[in-house]
């Protein structure tokens, strides 16, 4: 099948201040091709379907095995990782666009640093005393590990934030990924020492009450993290914390 072709339509934007334009590319089909390998092909031969020279596409990518979280974009309208978007499973022409909820940098590259700022705000870490040898960690039973491990698989791709109707400038909502991390660290025997601070960080504007339970997050998550369960659990904890704080004040 030497002449089988693959058609991609890619939304290009040279900078945040430039207008967006769509470019079409036609490539030779290859076995196992995915959206990233198609864009690598374009970089080696940056010519559009109508024969016009263009520039290689700017996009984030790194591991290409859906574990680094870099290459999130919208493919045929769906937020997902481009590396695992196999061409054979996609309807053509394949329409590729940047995530829409984050500041655009160039082409398919966006700035998702808001997630890392959110993780700072909720103190998403275990506050160890130090890195010197203090002996083994707390005992954790397998049942507990099996709850925590999936939460710890979050790759910070921000797909859950992209598809959330509440994640926008108006609400300032932190989004599902951050809330799941709050559950993870509150579950940890040592991490729980910061539990109250984390819950208070989610109690105000942009906090957990902004969630509208659309459940888009859990559907789109490439790691199948039980995000809605995490939101329910943390919601309950935030309410309890609010009540406690009210009674104390």
């Amino acid at each position, binding site marked *: 099948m030497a002449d089988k072709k693959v058609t991609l339509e890619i939304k290009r934007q040279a900078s945040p201040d430039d207008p967006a334009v769509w470019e079409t590319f036609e490539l030779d089909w290859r076995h*196992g091709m995915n959206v990233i390998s198609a864009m690598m092909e374009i970089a080696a031969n940056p010519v559009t379907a109508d024969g016009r020279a263009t*520039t*290689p596409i*700017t996009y984030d990518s790194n591991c290409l095995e859906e574990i680094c979280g870099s290459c999130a974009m919208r493919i045929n309208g769906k937020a997902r990782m481009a590396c695992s978007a196999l061409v054979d499973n996609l309807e053509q022409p394949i329409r590729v666009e940047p995530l829409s909820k984050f500041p655009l*940098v160039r*082409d398919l590259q966006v700035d998702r640093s808001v997630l*890392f700022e959110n993780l700072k705000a909720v103190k998403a870490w275990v506050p160890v005393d130090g*890195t010197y040898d203090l002996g083994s960690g707390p005992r954790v039973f397998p049942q507990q590990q099996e709850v925590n491990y999936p939460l710890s698989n979050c790759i910070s791709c921000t797909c859950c934030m992209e598809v959330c109707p509440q994640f926008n400038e108006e609400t300032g909502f932190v989004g599902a990924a951050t809330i799941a991390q709050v559950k993870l660290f509150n579950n940890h025997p040592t991490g729980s020492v910061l539990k109250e601070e984390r819950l208070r960080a989610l109690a105000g504007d942009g906090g957990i009450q902004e969630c509208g339970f659309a459940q888009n997050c859990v559907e789109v998550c490439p790691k199948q993290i039980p995000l809605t369960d995490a939101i329910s659990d943390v919601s309950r904890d935030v309410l309890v914390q609010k009540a406690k704080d009210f009674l104390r004040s």
Partner: protein
Amino acid sequence: MAAPRIIVVGGGLAGLAAVIKIAEAGGTVDLFSIVPVKRSHSVCAQGGINAAKNLKGEGDTTDKHFDDTIYGGDFLANQTPVKAMCEAAPAIIDLLDRMGVPFNRTPEGLLDFRRFGGTLYNRTAFAGATTGQQLLYALDEQVRRYESEGKVKKYEGWEFLSAVLDSKGQARGITALDLRTMELRSFHADAIILATGGTGAIFGKSTNSVICTGSAQSAIFQQGAFYGNGEFIQVHPTCIPGEDKLRLMSESARGEGGRVWVPRTPGDPRPVKQIPASERFYFLEEWYPKYGNLVPRDVATRAIHKVVYQLGLGLDGQPMVYLDLTHIDRATLNRKLEGILEIYEKFVGVDPRDEPMKIFPGVHYTMGGLWVDFNQMTSIPGIFAAGECEYQYHGANRLGANSLVSCIFGGFRSGPNALEYARNLPAAEGDGGHAAELARQAEINGKLLKNEGTENPFKLWRELGKTMTEHATVIRYNKGLKEADEKVVELLDRYKNVNLSDRSQWANTSFAFARQLKNMLELSRVIAQGALLRDESRGAHYKPGFPDRNDEKFLKTTKAAFTGSAAGPRFEYEEVDTQYIKPRPRNYDAAK
């Protein structure tokens, strides 16, 4: 005296480990990374991390870990640092556990351990089959904590270009490129730690991430640092061939009982599950009865090559063999290996719980790297290196699950050592060389951006990957290695004629790539020529023309120095520290 300023380049396990130690000791750090540090290549490590904690009642000890590592590395590693690493490993696991890494557990709530290649002990702690991801996140979280306390400043989206050296040749800072604004800047530092990972991109397709080009190491090498054991490149036996990369299928699949086989009859037409056991060739188990499927990676890789290319038993005549997990129950597989099984399922479209996986070897790990002393300092004063980018811990072949421990251990050592060095550094004369280095980099950038050639950098890179994979991986012939070096020289020449299809000054990825490519080409010569000169077989370096290890001539560290001349690097050799374990023949047919 002002507080010392340390720059760490690279935010994988080694870089973050160094940052944590410096911040803990009261220092402040500027952390540079091409990608947000949480997306570093360490996330790709799957199977686990080694430490002889002996929680399975097997009588494992750190001495046995040390011996396995030295023996697995075919005696090429200096023994003093390896011994120290193996002794530190149990406490490193405890620390990671305290930081919240969700390691798999025993029913009693203790750490679970599994077997890995090159050992007979259950010595590998693991978090499912995504251990590297979990470890990286734990360190990332601690660094975020220090960042929020103002002790760490991150420069994510910046690429290291070069070191700034003063008139005495000591490091005084770095130059770096903002990959978004394309701004070139120099940054002051009293010591620098490079933790910039492996060099897989030199081979085109590998298991490495896109950023693993070795560009930073190469830049330092071209500024005068020695590069050690460059010819030692690990080819992992079990990968999924792909269009864009080779995806790793962790050794933990075999650690949990996975078996490698091919049908005894070439092109056996029966569906795989109907081939009876008697007609399956479990070649690793037959050839290596003691270690079986868990021989070290270089041994397994050569065995697969033999089965495919000499015996003609590749699946359907293709370069592939089976890695079979279907005899293990689904619940166990999901609990211990889900991460990698999902990768296979997603990228191949077949459930490996039902059908054996089809795999083939792929370039995986860079044993060689920047030469460092036992304090992790390169031959340039003030530049330290840690993690995969240095050469120190794995000799001629790395054992599975030793990389994570070497990254963290190397990071933990380099941080305090860099701080100590910086505290004793006299003030720079003049500007410490900043203006001159900035001008040099600006000239390179200006020239590249304006170059009116015809060569596409991505195409040159494909040619590089093809020749290096063909001649400088599993089986090496001197004729082929010479060809590879000549090809690299040709590519270096054509590079002068490179043409960026993108000349913009905003998030220009072609520009950044073209700069990396030049550095990849220079490092390729170190690999090809180093391999050419080493007329023996040792660990991952195998020459059919010289099938035996030759300790008399080559029990030596290769040190390459950049010359800038057409002949390529200059090589010299250094004695290996073998004071604890006397070199003995390496043979995995039997227990050692």
